[in-house]
């Protein structure tokens, strides 16, 4: 039996997608012109699917910091921090992120995906139970699997459902970890944190919030949903990524627990992989300083998010959630029409993400936009205009139906 024979169904699905005129999962940015512009198929395209929330990727100071680190520390670290030791830059990055987050401890990982793998598996073991939101990111699911803990899934954003499942739990001696996200990556909605914390007071568990899409974005200090809600004291562990607002690559876990530092010796995704490259570490340090010093970036992002949200709402589009968010998902009727509309948008000069089951909740087909502080009003108005032509007017549906 050929091991790859099981990929037949995926191959067929990909071929059906390409037959509709483009490869929505194989886009090549031939040249990056700015945080919000790239050349795609030789055409200048507005990027509205990058998660580049702060538009910080071409910031001159961040680039200079990266170049300096490249020159001083070299191109790579060539090993894990446990085996090879840390570079001073890693320690500095952790100290600066801990300070930004107002946490005693911060551990950085090579990606956000690994941060979730590491934190889930470091915090919970086979005797423990992890309660995870049904719409959790794949990195949370994979981290849960790696942990060997008992896994219980609760209904998305439903604190009463979590309460019910905690009450149902067979009493054992293990610990309980509840995992939420600040902003959910597909639909753009936020966790109702206060409701979950009421359940926490009732049942007693430890709480982790993945602020991947909300770090730098929400809260008076830009620390995320818990900062916005004024509930950081109730959150035991924070996870985040450098791949979005920080404009680099890497991830972090943070907390105040006295044993937190020992997680370094208990997290395989931290121990058995090379540490992040000097340039990436240095640009992350420069970026977090900017996030602290330039709150106007957050303000601008909020204004841009509201502009796109209101514009789409005025078109009568069905959106992923009922509040303005830097993640704006547009619900589409089915897979062929979604692919056709995605193609039409790209041809007209706007790149958004296509999101299809099983990568979406409730089998939804989505055109997912992410807003950047670097989008101009004209960019956003152009995106709204094109969604009006392509999605609201049903042009995409006509394309799909031939």
């Amino acid at each position, binding site marked *: 039996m050929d091991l790859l024979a099981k990929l037949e169904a995926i191959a067929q699905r990909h071929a059906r997608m390409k037959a509709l005129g483009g490869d929505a999962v194989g886009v090549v940015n031939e040249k990056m012109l700015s945080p919000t512009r790239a050349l795609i198929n030789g055409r200048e395209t507005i990027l509205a699917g990058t998660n580049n929330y702060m538009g910080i990727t071409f910031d001159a100071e961040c680039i200079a910091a990266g170049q300096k680190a490249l020159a001083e520390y070299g191109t790579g670290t060539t090993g894990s921090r446990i085996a090879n030791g840390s570079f001073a830059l890693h320690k500095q990055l952790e100290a600066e992120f801990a300070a930004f987050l107002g946490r005693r401890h911060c551990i950085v990982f090579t990606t956000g995906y690994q941060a979730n793998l590491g934190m889930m598996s470091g915090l919970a073991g086979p005797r423990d139970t992890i309660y995870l939101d*049904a719409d959790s990111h794949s990195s949370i699911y994979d981290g*849960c699997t790696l942990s060997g803990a008992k*896994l219980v*899934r609760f*209904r998305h954003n439903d604190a009463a459902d979590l309460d019910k499942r905690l009450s*149902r*739990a067979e009493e054992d001696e293990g610990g309980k970890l509840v995992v939420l996200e600040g902003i959910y990556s597909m639909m753009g909605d936020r966790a109702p944190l206060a409701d979950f914390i009421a359940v926490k007071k009732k049942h007693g568990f430890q709480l982790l919030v993945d602020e991947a899409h909300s770090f730098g974005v929400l809260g008076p200090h830009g620390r995320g949903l818990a900062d916005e809600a004024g509930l950081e004291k109730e959150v035991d562990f924070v996870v985040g990524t450098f791949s979005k607002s920080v404009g680099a690559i890497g991830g972090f876990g943070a907390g105040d627990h006295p044993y937190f530092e020992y997680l370094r010796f208990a997290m395989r995704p931290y121990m058995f992989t090379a540490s992040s490259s000097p340039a990436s570490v240095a640009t992350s340090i420069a970026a977090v300083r900017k996030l602290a010093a330039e709150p106007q970036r957050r303000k601008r992002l909020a204004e841009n998010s509201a502009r796109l949200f209101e514009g789409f709402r005025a078109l009568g589009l069905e959106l992923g959630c009922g509040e303005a968010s830097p993640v704006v998902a547009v619900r589409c009727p089915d897979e062929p029409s979604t692919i056709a509309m995605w193609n039409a948008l790209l041809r007209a000069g706007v790149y958004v993400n296509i999101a299809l*089951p*099983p990568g979406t*909740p409730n089998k939804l087909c989505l055109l997912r936009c992410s807003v950047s502080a670097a989008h101009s009003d004209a960019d956003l108005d152009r995106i709204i205009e094109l969604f009006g032509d392509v999605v609201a007017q049903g042009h995409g549906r006509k394309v799909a139906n031939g």
Partner: protein
Amino acid sequence: MTDTVSQLCTLLEPFNTNGAALSAATDISTDLNIDSVTVMDFVMEVEDHFDIEIPLNVLSETRTVADLARVVEARTGKG
């Protein structure tokens, strides 16, 4: 069909978009051609219907309706 199997088949019906014939031998994922997330959504309905906890960990060894019925009966005390 045992009572548990028939209740599971009823709960499975909304997920049976292919109109497959449902029985104890039905392979939930492959016969119904549903993805892993949908299987988890179905199991959530089963948990609520029987008021039991079915950790995701048991799903890797649960392929058919009969397998799931055994899990349910063990947890409702009928097994």
